[in-house]
Structure formats: structure tokens, C-alpha cells
């Protein structure tokens, strides 16, 4: 990985598309690469494919060398040696296929409304609305899913974005083993621990409640 230690300003020419692949924070105009945000420019060369080389059965021209990807770091303070360890706010949006953490705000028989709090590793500034529909709660026996037995308001849920959705909501899904409720409180108000793929238990009262439980690591 080579580092071009320059700071780019939006609109700055970074090179031709025949030499670089556009990464995050850049855009292409007239087959040239330009910066689109303020920040340090990095050029990353993709690693050579590992593994045993195939025995040559015929002579072919050598595969073109992979082009380096030019990108600009969105998180300025993290790129530098931040001493105080504060997490700088870098505004990003939930995208399709990104894993998010959210809090359940409201449930109805057909869907659970959630507020998206974290995308990937980034804590969001604002709260974005999401929706987990009853058919997206789990992958099997979808017809037997009951929202009330999967989520309760206040639960923290790990989910994946399946669509940007309509005007207000992102559509989320928990249809995978590692997705579902990761933190839940009981009706008595105690933090619970998961005991099976569909149950959380209150350590004090011993009562168990139904949830769509995310697989612990």
C-alpha cells in the first residue's frame, strides 16, 4: 500500500481512470478521477491473488496488473494520530447489505418499527427509521412468525438492510442466524440473557420470554 501524503480538495484531479480505480470519496468526470471530499488521498494496490499458481497449459499474455484504487478518507481525525481517542463523527448512511444496530420503538402484528443507531462501526448522528416486516424476521417457517414473540419495544437488534424502502423507513431483515435481538430487558425491567435461539431468560425472576435471538459469537 502506497501513501500519497497529500490532502485533496473537492475537484482536484487525482489521475486518469486508465491508471486508477475510483474508490470512496472520488468521482469520475471525462475519464479522469477527481476528489469529491476533503481529506488525505490514499492509493491502495490490491494484493496479488494468493494460492498455488496453475500450471501453464498454454501461453497467454500476462494478465494486466491490477490497478491501484484511489480513495479519500472520510474520517479526517481518525486518519491522523488522534490522541484523545474520541470517535469523530463521520456522517454515513445505511446502505443495502450493511449491518445495523437498532432499537425497537413500536411493534404491530405486521411489523416492528426500529430506530437505526449504528451502521457498521459508525454511530450515527441522527436516528433513521427502519422497519422489520413479519416476513423478514426469520428465514424458516415465515408463516408462523409472530412479531410479538420476536421483538419487544426497547430491544437492541442486529439486522441487515434489504432495501432503502419507502419515504420514511429503511427495510431491515433479521433472517439469518447471527441477526436478531442482542440485548433485551424483561417485563420486570432486568437485563436478560439468551438461552436458546428463541428464548431470553431473566436471571432474577427466572421467567423466560420469546425473542428472535441473534446467535452469540
Amino acid at each position: 500500500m502506497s501513501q500519497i501524503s497529500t490532502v485533496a480538495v473537492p475537484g482536484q484531479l487525482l489521475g486518469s481512470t486508465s491508471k486508477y480505480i475510483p474508490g470512496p470519496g472520488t468521482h469520475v468526470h471525462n475519464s479522469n478521477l477527481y476528489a469529491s471530499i476533503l481529506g488525505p488521498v490514499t492509493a491502495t494496490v490490491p494484493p496479488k491473488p494468493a494460492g498455488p499458481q496453475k500450471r501453464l497449459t498454454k501461453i497467454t499474455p500476462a494478465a494486466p496488473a491490477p490497478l491501484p484504487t484511489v480513495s479519500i478518507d472520510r474520517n479526517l481525525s481518525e486518519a491522523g494520530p488522534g490522541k484523545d481517542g474520541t470517535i469523530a463523527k463521520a456522517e454515513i448512511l445505511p446502505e443495502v447489505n450493511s449491518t445495523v444496530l437498532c432499537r425497537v420503538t413500536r411493534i404491530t402484528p405486521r411489523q416492528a418499527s426500529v430506530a437505526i443507531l449504528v451502521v457498521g462501526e459508525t454511530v450515527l448522528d441522527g436516528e433513521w427509521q427502519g422497519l422489520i416486516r413479519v416476513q423478514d424476521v426469520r428465514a424458516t417457517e415465515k408463516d408462523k412468525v409472530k412479531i410479538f414473540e420476536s421483538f419487544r419495544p426497547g430491544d437492541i437488534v442486529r439486522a441487515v438492510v434489504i432495501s432503502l424502502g419507502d419515504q420514511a423507513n429503511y427495510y431491515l431483515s433479521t433472517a439469518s442466524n447471527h441477526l436478531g435481538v442482542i440485548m433485551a430487558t424483561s417485563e420486570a425491567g432486568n437485563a436478560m440473557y439468551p438461552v436458546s435461539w428463541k428464548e431470553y431468560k431473566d436471571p432474577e425472576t427466572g421467567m423466560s420470554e420469546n425473542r428472535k435471538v441473534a446467535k452469540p459469537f
Partner: protein
Amino acid sequence: MADRRRINGPTGGTSAPVFSKYVIKSPEDGSDRPSRTRPGNVPRKMFLKTGVTPSASGSAYLELEASKQSLTSTRGLASLSTSGLKLTCTVHGPRPLPKSAPFSPHIILSTHVKYAPFATRKRRGYIRDSTERDLGVHLETALRGVIIGDRWPKSGVDVIITILEGEEDQWWGDDRGRAAAGAEEWGMMSVLSGCVTVASAAIVDAGIDCVDVVSGGVAAIIREPKGSLMSTMLVLDPVPSEHQEILAACVVAYLPGRDEITDLWVRGEIGPLRSSEKSFSYEDLANNAVQAALGSHRVLVGALKETAEMKMHH
């Protein structure tokens, strides 16, 4: 619509008083009249700094050097200042759209420009008037062509500019004699140009993807006496109070990287001219405004690089 929540002054706005002991000569005499000391092709010095408002996603402050007062009689009298533009801009976003808003595959840009009540000699109201709305629309046009909107679906961004010190439309001495309505709003032109530059800095500070950094520039054709005759002249970054007569002025929002203009606003008319006067075309006017924009672009890029350095090594 009346503002019922605050105690307001007269609706028409008032001028700060000019006490006669400061005015040694009568304004009709004209010797107190400020005049441009810079050469025609030199814009005012500019100060630009980003990250001034911690609570906003991005912010910037812009100040233009106040023109020097050569007159001792009016020194230190704020109400007689000829100019020194001061703008602050905050950018909030990208943030979720309100629930009632329809789905948008790109970012929704909204701009608000507001004069502080004390920004000009004539006091401004608290509610946005038509001038401020006009500036907002122009600013939105200028910025819309720069932002890469589809990188931020379903989100909105608010650009809010407060004008702390505005540009006067004319010299205060002229203001006294004539009805205030008679003057064209020349001050708006430099204000818009400043708004474009400061908003551009704040948007980049907020980390919103842009095609280029847009900067604003103004040029004007002025008429002034030269000897016994009148002559016309093209000047960059005009201060309206320094000129007796402005024939036409032009603001551009310019992208130097792409050589594109996202907003163009021409006001006034060049002709008809007297035989002694040099004629200019509107194209000359626009080209010179672009030159002024290039000047502010240099300041803009310098300020942004400073921001990046500071954020990386804080």
C-alpha cells in the same frame, strides 16, 4: 405577516442616527465621499475559516476587509462604515428527512439566508423578506450544481447563512438626500458572492460530496468623473458606497476545475453611454466576475487545506 412574539421597531426599518457633529461638511458637498483606493482588478482581502460552530456538521466564517477610511471626521463611527462583509454559515446534515417528505433518491438541499437585524445601517426585520429569499434561491442554484446528490439518498441538508454585517447599497450621504427606495440593491451582489464562497467551505467541512469547490465573484461597471468628463470602468469586487454610480454588476458562482458557472446574476444596464465613455459588453462583465471568483477560490482552497491539516493533527 406580523411578528407578534418580539417587541419590534417600526416596520419600515430605521437608519442609525448620524449626528451632525461628526459630519463636518454636508454630504451634498461630497468631499466626505469614500472612494476606491484599490486598483480596479484587485478584490478586497478575505478571511475564511471553517469549523467555527461545533454543534453543526460543517460551518464557516467569512470576512471581507473593511475599506479604509481616509477621513478623520468619520473615524470609528460604525454607522458610517462603508463596508466589511461578515458572514457565518452552518451546514446541518446529511440528516433524515421529515416523515412527511416523499422518497428522494438524492439529497434535498435547502438554503436559508438571513440578515441579522443589525447587519446594515437600515435595520432589518426578524422575518425573512424578499431580498433574503432571493439570495436563498440564488445560493441554492449555485450549490445544487456542485453537490453530488445521489451519494446521499433519503437525506436532507440545511445550509443556513447569517449575515452579520452586510454591504450597503450606497453611500450614506446619498441615502439621506434621496428616497431609500431609489437605490438599486447593489449590496446584495457582493453578499451573494460571499454567501456562495462561505457555503462552499461549510459544505466541504461537513463532508458532503462535491464535484468541485464553488466560489463566488462580483464585477461591476461603474461611472465616475475623470477630469471634466465622465468615464466608465470595470472593477472587481465593488463596494457600492465607494462608487457614485454603478451601471451594471454581475455575480457568478464558478467552478474553476471544470470551468463551469452554476449561477449567474446580472443586474443593471450598460448602455446608453456617452461618447467619452468606454463601452463594455456583458461578456466582459461576466469574465471579470469569473476572475474575481478565481481570487476567492484561492482563499477557499487555502482555508480548506488548513482545515484538513488541523483535523488530521489535532
